């Protein structure tokens, strides 16, 4: 075969492919469009239908059994659930039972082949949070597809299905940080029911400095149960891992309470700047006027984050603002800067200017405004 024939064959192939593509486009796209239009219209119809159902007092429904198999119906149901609350949401829950939707979606979830269907089913079950699906969701916490696992955890959290807590915690070590944070998020939905399982998990794993531990600690912070504080204090004492210590200090700050005060203050004097920085932020919530001296010291710390957090915490404490103004006169340039920035964030610069303009300016207002103007002049 000579070159020209090869070329000719190639041309024919290319143009044949083009013809094929053209046919596909002219046939497939309109089909998809029509299908999407129909889906959209059905969904609107279902929303209207469900709205009437909710508004009517008799609670009677004229909906054929077939609707249960229609994905558009499910989409409409999920949409409505995100908008309505209370007993009306329960009415929708009754519909879910009536049409056996949870079971059908569970079946979809168990299919092996089509990942998109499984994911859709997992999302639906998570949104519906119907207890009958709990066993299936538990089984799929170890699914191959990452997003399916996450949705299962989410669904179980929303229904506060107790047996799932341990199963979710078990996966902390094997999941990537992103997935782990979403698992942790679903634990927050359990509220205080998750406190003790989390504490056990932390107690067991912190000596190994397992990567899931900081996440578990922070989850305790999000839950906010003060029962966790003694255990956290133990961990802080015991642990040598910086990440864990940082997470504990942050969490103690969130949960608050008198017991947390001493250890956090101690952390504010740690060698690790990250601990000092976290402690500086935490002290704001634990505060009490007794934290002020520690925070004032923090203004002169060598690390920018520590200075910034200390200044910010001071700006949130009643007598802290006075300390910030006083710091404007400090010898330490960095302390002056940190103080003025925190004062600016707190709106004090504007307030000071206003006071000066209305003739009620105090010496410290003038100091602040001068300091800020000098900095601006350098720009």
């Amino acid at each position: 075969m000579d070159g020209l024939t090869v070329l000719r064959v190639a041309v024919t192939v290319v143009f044949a492919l083009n013809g094929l593509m053209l046919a596909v486009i002219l046939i497939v796209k309109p089909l998809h469009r029509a299908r999407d239009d129909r889906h959209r219209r059905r969904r609107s119809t279902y929303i209207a239908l469900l709205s009437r159902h909710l508004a009517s007092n008799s609670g009677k429904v004229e909906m054929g059994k077939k609707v249960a198999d229609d994905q558009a119906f499910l989409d409409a149901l999920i949409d409505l659930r995100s908008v309505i609350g209370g007993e009306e949401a329960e009415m929708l829950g009754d519909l879910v039972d009536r049409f056996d939707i949870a079971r059908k979606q569970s079946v979809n979830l168990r299919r092996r082949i089509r990942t998109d269907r499984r994911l859709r089913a997992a999302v639906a079950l998570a949104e519906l949070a119907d207890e009958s699906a709990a066993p299936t969701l538990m089984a799929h916490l170890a699914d191959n597809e990452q997003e399916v696992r996450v949705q299962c955890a989410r669904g179980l959290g929303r229904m506060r299905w107790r047996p799932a807590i341990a199963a979710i915690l078990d996966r902390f070590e094997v999941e990537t940080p992103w997935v782990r944070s979403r698992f942790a998020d679903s634990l927050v939905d359990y509220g205080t029911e998750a406190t003790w399982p989390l504490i056990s998990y932390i107690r067991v794993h912190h000596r190994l400095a397992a990567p899931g531990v900081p996440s578990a600690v922070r989850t305790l912070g999000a839950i906010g149960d003060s029962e966790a504080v003694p255990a956290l204090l133990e961990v802080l004492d015991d642990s040598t891992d910086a990440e864990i210590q940082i997470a504990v200090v942050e969490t103690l700050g969130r949960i608050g309470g008198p017991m947390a005060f001493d250890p956090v203050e101690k952390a504010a004097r740690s060698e690790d700047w990250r601990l000092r920085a976290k402690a500086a932020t935490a002290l704001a919530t634990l505060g009490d006027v007794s934290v002020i001296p520690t925070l004032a010291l923090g203004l002169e710390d060598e690390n920018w984050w520590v200075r910034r957090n200390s200044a910010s915490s001071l700006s949130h404490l009643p007598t802290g603002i006075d300390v910030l103004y006083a710091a404007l006169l400090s010898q330490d340039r960095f302390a002056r800067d940190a103080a003025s920035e925190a004062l600016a964030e707190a709106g004090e610069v504007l307030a000071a200017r206003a006071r000066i303009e209305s003739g009620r300016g105090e010496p410290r207002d003038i100091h602040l405004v001068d300091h800020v103007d000098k900095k601006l002049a350098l720009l």
Partner: protein
Amino acid sequence: MIAVAIQIVGYAAVSYYALMNLYILGLSIHSALVLRRNHHLQRFGRVREMLSSRLAPPVSIVLPAYNEAAGIVDAIRSMSIVEYPRFEIVVANDGSSDDTLEALVEAFQLELVRIPYRDELSTKPMRAIYRGRSGVDITVVDKENGGRADALNAGINAARYPYVLCTDADVVLDAQCLVRAMQRVVEDRERTVGVGGNIRPLNGSTVELGHLISTSVPRGMIARMQILEYLRTFICSRPGWSEWNGLPNVSGAFGIWRRSAVLAVGGFSPGHMGEDMDLTLRMHRFHIDNDIPYRIVYEPSAVIWTEVPESARVLRRQRIRWHRGLMQIVADFKSMLLNPRYGRVGMVTWPGYFLFEYLAPIIEFVGYIVVPTGIILNLLSPRAIIAMIAIAFGVGMLNSFIAILLDEPYGYANSGTDTTRLVVIALAENFGLHQMTVLWRIRALLGGRSVKVWGNMERRGVASLSET
């Protein structure tokens, strides 16, 4: 001797054209697979959860504004209702000579605030900072004129949050674009430093008060050709490149960057004509040189709409500017070309860009001269040449068809007539339109300051677009 040279050059020029389209075909197939795999994740995405979330980091939307008095207020308003838990808008007024600043001050009740401003990136002098007192969390930085890159740098300086979304005042954002793009950030917070979005031409669509009501393909050939171009880039190339962590360009119209990373590489380059690509390549280089694990990704469902030139005159200016920018970039990043140290960016995507974007006009131009000459002098076989050109055209059309097929409407239905119109352009594009851009890019290469490249876009205001 010359005869042989003409033969070689002639066949080479034509095969180059075919090769270029084959390369794009390869990219298209790869991208198609990537898109398909991630498609189900996008549709049933976790948007709702992110929105309620403790998981979503705050973002500063930064945009430069130069003489945008006509549309700036509507633009900011529509940005302000983007669906995202926590964000602020930072506008850098780049020394506008019209009422841009006044319009902003009035609409958002801006107050002059004299607060410390840390100029981590150095810019043209700042005149003032304003913060809004009404519902919208907006900061306006008023500065002396310095160009888009300079203005962005000033905006970034004033931005409070760890991530910045760099965009433009004439862009219409889809309500969920931010949350979808940020999902890519949070799923790998440590490594993700940049996310690029999907840009679609706005022309022909109806926009009201900064919101997209409906879309359709515009009337003019010039605008339609661009629609196809954008589709090809954002569907056929970017998904594949992103998968390889080799994205050479995160477009200036929508680019999310980790603020600390932008500072580390020194921000955008003032005066650069391709400042978005310049920053992207610098990000790649910086992280690789310093052994920092990173990734820059493209998110196809983060959709935004922007106006593209409708007239040949304005398009010409734009293309010349782009090519000049590319010339600057080639000079700056020569060392990365075919350098194995830079992984896929260095070995595949940047060389691809260099070969098929930068060199393209030269080679094609040479082809336009040498090939007819060769045929006339009987040195090149007309049949072979025609066959090769036909293959090149054919593969090019295939790429366009793939793009049209895979295009998602993203909530705005495209009518059947629209699809047909695009198909027609795919067929006709190679007969004149493409050649026109080649000539313009040659003009860019030949240099000279006589071509005014910035000018104004002759923006007629998006309101009048719906009249086309």
